[in-house]
């Protein structure tokens, strides 16, 4: 099929231009997708990937943009998502669109019910669900509620849902962002299988390793324009080439170089135990011990559900968990932060994993977001000094180079990387000594990642302690002086920078409870 003289295009987008008041989000973008291939779409946040896919799927209806869409060599004019789905285009968004308390089968046929005169035909629903679940290699009872299976399996349910709609062109927006290593592999293998069955996929991803592993063709977008389209089967492509295309400059190193200056032990946790919030006998963290020195960047590796976030949040003013026991020391003194405001007073900051849900007030402007954690700093007797507040927020905005005209801009209107910088500003505003960062670079682009790394290194250089939770091994290896590895609630190992390799860490990550005891 690769030898076809004329490329058999399933989709062609020509000269797509889309403007919002004041911004040109897409500027003459061209995209050609060959049938039966995996086509990767890469670019920094704000490069226009999502906008392009919204144009394609009818979220932005025909007429609201310039340019032409041809599907199977016929012009396509979609007025809404329903029409694009009828034509076989299905988007799977980063935030999964499943109803947690409904069953797998109900979710798969949601809005597409197998019914007779308005009554659900359960027999047909179940048999067809089993058929599509087999295709995505998911061995679950169709009656299981979606809330009862992991994120990785939920992603598969989403794909099964698309298959049930007779999908021709499957679009996946950051499908592996929330998945661990093995679930990601699983998903990528599935994409290959679907390709062999003739289903074309467009893959939007920040994880270039994945892109290089599965993509047949790679299109790079930058600032709303197509930079280039690379045939990954015809030539050897490296990450560097894609990155330089995305950022428009060469990034010699993904991680900035640094010479750590380690000081005294700053922060220490001893014998830490945490139980689940709602399931009382489920222990999430088991006898954890760790320490961070001044000037040190320490990583916590682990698979999803290993207990990393639970550990961090329970230490951060007991914002997670029940029956918490153990001791926390700062500068050798035992501290007992029983609430988040206690923790903040003790100089601990926790940058949450999910910035939109737990980190930001999207309706509020940058200024209000930045000062919320420590309004006392800019107020006298509980009255906020508005001028002082603006000055402080503006200083952090410039310091961290948040790309916004002023601090009066709504946080919800910023790109992912800039939102993350606002969250960081918010925590730097509290003048912390210990920064706990939970997945600080998830879902943000390469350029912004680099800037976040620089900020982390600067904080370490100032003598603060940085504790970083990450699911991306290369990031941990590239950034950390020391890495703790967690598995099933236990810290299964500690590796120094020198001994840290992907293999060594991965081995500790997958160590089971029984083997960890020995």
């Amino acid at each position, binding site marked *: 099929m690769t030898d076809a003289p004329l490329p058999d295009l399933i989709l062609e987008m020509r000269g797509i231009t889309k403007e919002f008041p004041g911004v040109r989000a897409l500027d003459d973008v061209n995209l050609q997708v060959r049938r039966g291939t995996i086509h990767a779409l890469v670019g920094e946040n704000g490069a226009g990937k999502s906008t392009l896919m919204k144009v394609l799927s009818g979220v932005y209806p025909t007429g609201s943009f310039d340019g032409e869409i041809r599907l199977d060599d016929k012009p396509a004019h979609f007025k809404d998502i329903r029409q694009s789905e009828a034509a076989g285009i299905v988007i799977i968004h980063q935030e999964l669109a499943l109803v947690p308390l409904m069953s797998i089968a109900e979710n798969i046929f949601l809005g597409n019910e197998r019914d007779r005169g308005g009554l659900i035909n359960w027999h047909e629903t179940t048999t067809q669900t089993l058929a599509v679940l087999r295709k995505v290699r998911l061995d679950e009872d169709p009656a299981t509620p979606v809330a009862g299976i992991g994120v990785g399996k939920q992603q598969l349910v989403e794909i099964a849902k698309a298959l049930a709609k007779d999908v021709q062109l499957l679009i996946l927006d950051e499908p592996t962002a929330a998945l661990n290593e093995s679930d990601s592999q699983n998903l990528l293998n599935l994409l290959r299988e679907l390709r062999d069955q003739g289903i074309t996929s467009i893959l939007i991803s920040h994880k270039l390793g994945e892109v290089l592993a599965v993509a047949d063709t790679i299109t790079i977008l930058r600032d709303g324009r197509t930079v280039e389209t690379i045939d990954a089967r015809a030539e050897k492509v490296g990450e560097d080439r894609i990155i330089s295309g995305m950022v428009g400059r060469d990034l010699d190193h993904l991680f900035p170089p640094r010479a750590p200056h380690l000081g005294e032990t700053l922060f220490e946790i001893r014998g830490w135990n945490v139980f689940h919030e709602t399931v009382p006998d489920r222990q999430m963290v088991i006898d954890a011990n760790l320490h961070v020195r001044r000037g040190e960047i320490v990583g916590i590796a682990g698979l999803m559900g290993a207990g990393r976030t639970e550990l961090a949040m329970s230490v951060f003013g007991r914002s997670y968990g029940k029956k918490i026991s153990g001791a926390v020391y700062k500068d050798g003194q035992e501290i007992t932060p029983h609430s988040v405001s206690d923790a903040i007073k003790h100089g601990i900051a926790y940058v949450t994993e999910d910035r939109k849900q737990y980190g930001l*007030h999207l*309706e509020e402007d940058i200024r209000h977001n930045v000062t919320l954690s420590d309004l*006392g700093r800019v107020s006298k007797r509980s009255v906020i000094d508005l001028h002082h507040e603006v*000055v402080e927020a503006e200083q952090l905005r410039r310091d961290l180079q948040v790309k916004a005209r002023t601090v009066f801009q709504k946080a919800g209107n910023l790109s992912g990387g800039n939102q993350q910088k606002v969250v960081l500003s918010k925590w730097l505003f509290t003048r912390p000594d210990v920064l706990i960062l939970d997945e600080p670079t998830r879902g943000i682009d390469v350029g912004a990642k680099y800037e976040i790394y620089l900020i982390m290194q600067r904080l370490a250089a100032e003598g603060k302690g940085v504790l970083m939770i990450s699911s991306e091994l290369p990031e941990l290896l590239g950034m950390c002086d020391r890495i703790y590895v967690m598995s099933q609630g236990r810290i299964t190992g500690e590796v120094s920078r020198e001994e840290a390799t992907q293999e060594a860490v991965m081995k500790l990550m997958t160590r089971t409870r029984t083997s960890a005891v020995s």
Partner: protein
Amino acid sequence: MAIDKLVVGPDPASSPPGGSPTPAAKPEGLLQTVSRSARSNVRQYGMVVALALIVILFQITTDGILLRPLNVNNLIMQNAYILILAIGMMLVIINGHIDLSVGSVAAFVGAVAGVMVVTWDLPWPLAVVAALAVGALIGAFQGFWIAYVGIPSFIVTLAGMLLFRGLSLVILEGQSLAPFPDGFREMAAGFIPDFAGGELHFFTILLGLAVSAAVAWNEWRTRRRRLYYNLPAGPVSWFVLRIAALTIVINAFTFTLARYEGMPIVGILLIALIVVYSFVMNRSVLGRHIYAVGGNRKAAELSGVKTKRTTFLVFVNMGMLAALAGLVFAARLNAATPKAGTNFELDAIAAAFIGGASAAGGVGTVVGAIVGGLVMGVMNNGMSLMDVAIDWQQAIKGSVLLLAVAFDVYNKNKSK
């Protein structure tokens, strides 16, 4: 294009320094300014414009009765208790909750005051203080279940609505208590004194001048601040026009009142509440926390905001304002009746939503609640003057509520 300025600039270096004064006036035409500020403040301006249109409409259909001095006075006195409730309700809704009990609480507190003043013959100022305390306690009671136990406010206050309506009937034994002493009645029916008696109420006119001067000063400060931060502030002509309009409206209002008996005491009370609550919501740490909890409770909690305590305090405050509304209503009626305050909660909730609150929480202003309350109040008054039957009044008010919120939602979706 004026709107460009509100959009993210690509280069942080091009952004203005916030710390240094660089009053770079931007060349922006008057029309552009009007359209920009209308677009960025659709919620606020939309409701003010709607209120103005409704006033004009009823002024015409009632042959000018609406804005006669006596009627303007009536408008304030008739709506004061709803406006007081609307302020508290706005805070509750911003915090992400609802309070269905305020009408019953108002009746209950009115009943308590009636028993204290009429039956026990206690001095009325003492009774007022005690009644406010009772209101705060009721608020604390409901706030406890909502904030600390975690029962949805809809359910707790629905229970409170039944509970306190029932208790009002118990306390009053189904009867009305009357009359109240004069001092107590002044709260709802009295006027501020005048020192130079004449045709016009001189002190009220002075008050109008003072208030408009304060408003102008505040506008000027805001403008200076915007220029200082290099935000688009619009041309001087627009600024002058705004201040002129505000001055005219304020002084026309006080002049009209001065032609009758002057500013009612309850009017002063309202102005004080608006100023204090606006200040609390905009400038105090507590106010910021109320917005933060409503906007994103989890994020607020992880920022060290004591979310439970904030919600608790919002309900204590609501209880106190419900008590105040109950007192004003009893004073106006000159009686404590078990039927007092029926459906007040619905008027207050409607006022808050018409005034720009979001059902999701985190959005709304005190002034918005007042504007929303006035929209309802002017419609009630105007339709009564036009002899529109009470059943039709209900239907029309319902439609206006729906339209106002639909307009709001439409605008929000459009700006996405």
